[in-house]
């Protein structure tokens, strides 16, 4: 019997189990479904709590951000750690500093966006696009608690702006602006900022990530605004890590871990 038969059987069984499970799902968009309004016998519904109370407690109009960065900020911190861990695993596999691949760097160097007249259109477009992308990325990070956006999205855009430089010119252009030393440092620094917003409240005698107590340091009007500002702080941390790891993964993959030449 070929392994495919086993695979097919496993798929069919899984499908049957999943179909059996959805047989008594609440209808789509039902406001009285357990996820929306809680269940008899359990704690009061968290969804209703978030909708009714979270603005008053955190002064963040975007409920998604307040759940993501404050109520469940511990999860988000580890999601950022997942990004870091993925990056570290990739570097551990790919990164090599042996000198064998020097030759790749030679001819590729010509096509730099700095003063290369053969690629003036690409270079110029890139020069114009990158600052716009980066400013928009900063807006997405900074405005994450008012509108859709936040650290992950903004960080991806920032990382993409460096990847654009590497694609338009070559990897050395991008690495000249964002070196291995700085992206490794920023990747760690991002989570240090995030976890720092958690540890400082501990020093002040509250629990990990209890942003409210930071009003003593941030000099805000009350704990609500301290939470709001802290969410901005942790979003910045997330953005730094995501940006660095995004670019670093690209740099390592495109140059087979040598960080020279590249595409």
């Amino acid at each position, binding site marked *: 019997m070929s392994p495919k038969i086993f695979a097919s059987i496993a798929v069919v069984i899984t499908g049957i189990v999943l179909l059996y499970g959805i047989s008594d799902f609440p209808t789509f968009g039902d406001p009285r*479904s357990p996820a*929306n309004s809680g269940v008899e016998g359990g*704690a009061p519904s968290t969804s209703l709590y978030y909708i009714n109370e979270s603005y008053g407690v955190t002064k963040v109009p975007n409920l998604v951000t307040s759940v993501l960065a404050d109520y*469940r900020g511990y*999860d988000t911190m*580890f999601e950022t750690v997942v990004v870091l861990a993925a990056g570290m695993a990739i570097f551990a596999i790919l990164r090599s500093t042996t000198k064998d691949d020097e030759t790749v760097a030679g001819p590729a160097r010509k096509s730099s966006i700095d003063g290369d007249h053969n690629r003036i259109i690409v270079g110029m477009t890139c020069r114009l696009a990158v600052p716009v992308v980066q400013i928009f990325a900063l807006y997405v990070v900074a405005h994450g608690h008012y509108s859709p956006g936040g650290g992950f999205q903004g960080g991806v855009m920032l990382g993409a702006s460096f990847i654009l430089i590497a694609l338009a010119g070559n990897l050395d252009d991008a690495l000249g602006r964002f070196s291995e030393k700085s992206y490794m440092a920023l990747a*760690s*620094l991002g989570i240090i900022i995030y976890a720092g917003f958690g540890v400082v409240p501990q020093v002040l005698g509250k629990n990990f990530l209890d942003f409210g107590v930071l009003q003593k340091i941030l000099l805000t009007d009350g704990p609500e605004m301290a939470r709001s500002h802290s969410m901005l702080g942790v979003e910045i941390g997330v953005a730094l890590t995501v940006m660095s790891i995004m670019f670093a993964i690209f740099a390592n993959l495109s140059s087979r871990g040598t960080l020279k030449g590249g595409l």
Partner: protein
Amino acid sequence: MLEQLPALILLAPLFGALLIGLIGLHDRRACFPIAFTALIISLASAIGAAMRAFTGGAYNYFIGGWEEPLGIGIVLRVDALNGLLLIAIAVVAVLAVIFTIRPSSEKDTDKTAYFYILFLLLCVGLFGITITGDAFNLFVLIEVSALTSYGLVAIGTSRRCKMAAFHYLLMGTVGASFYLLGVGYLYLKTGSLNMQDINTILTTNATVAQSPAIVTAFILILVGIWIKMAFFPLYGWLPNAYSYSPSGSSCLLAPLMTKVSVYVMIRVMLSLFGLEWVFGHPGWSDLVVWLAVIAILAGSIMALAQREIKRMLCYLIVAEIGYMVGGAWLNDPNLWGLTGASYHILADAMMTLCLFLFAGILFKYHGVSEIGDLGGMFKKMPITSIGFIVGALAMIGVPPTCGFFSKFYLIRGGIEGGHPEYVAALLISSLVNAVLFFRIFEIAYFGKNPAAGHSHDHGHDDHDSHDHDDPGDAVTTAARPMREAPVYALIPLLAAAALIILVGIFNGQIIELIRLTFEIPATVVSNLR
């Protein structure tokens, strides 16, 4: 500060990893001291946090101070069961990190900093899985530990370990996805992610508890965890991942990853769905115990067929997973099976650590990986041999090692729960272990020392043995003459051996603590000894 200890257990290795990220790339000599200090802080906090649970009962730590209403934030929950496991994880991590010190003759490689970052982040993930009281947070930390362990397997220089890591990645991702899908189903029916809250709903609200979606959620979660712990038909990734990975990695991965997954299964049965719900479904218990019997027998038989030490140990892990899953599902009236399974998590972590350290020492310092090459070991490496003998006797189940007591409780559970097939499988597996290890004893005691030259004639061609490389250890592949391993390799081995005996001697106290978690009437607990 004492009430902050549960958070500190994770934060110490997290900040250690970040600190290595900041400075470790420039100064590789800083990596080990940072990692060691971080893990020692974790160990101290774990002991402190667990002591509070031992004396004062289970308690919650609300992240961000979000207490009311229950479930809006994330809660860490320490009770006696996971308190013990937290200490065990910290102990194993400290001993495994000591083993990664390299001899002064070997140079650091490019990968040293990455190795320690992944090592510490894996510890963060394992601590987090163990301590959390939130079903979704558990998934996030499973991801942290999974990604780091793929990296730790792939960090070796050979091609084989990369393939093993890729296989592991595919299986691990499937497992984690099943778990996540299960949590999604659970959330749809209960509207909560907090374990305590879900448990209350399932025990009080019968319509929710009996709905097909909840049953599906349980099956999905269970299968997901089974893939993660390499339960028998789903074990395919384990032997390659653990035997091809560098010794420094496998000494952390092998004792902890599968054991923490078993803990997750017990936690899901005990605190998420509740034992009454789980065993309220007729036939499930029998089915899983039979699966476990097959796992035990298959693992033992496959272990018999192996010539490499590490691979043999890997198949023994498959059998041990069968012990624990079967024990947890015995459904005997006094829960001796579940008690034995929980105790065996600790015992097996120590035994696996001890034996993998032994295999690591042999490979790292002597280039030996096959059982046939062990001739004359007892004479040449007496101290290493002592550690190995203790680990082997524990695997066989000789008193006063912990392996004897876990089998004792598991067999008691099997008899009281009416599962003679499980008892028989346990005894057969012990017998197989005895055969396996006495065969090694014989070779090590009477065999000739093969270091003189024929050590490479064992079917491995040269290319293959090149592959079997360590990033941390820059091993030369030729078997070197056997002599005693350096002190920093012997310390963790002997400490692990001592712990095997200590966990065995203090089994009464440990069992009592474990049974605190099960809320069994006091009369049963007092009948313990």
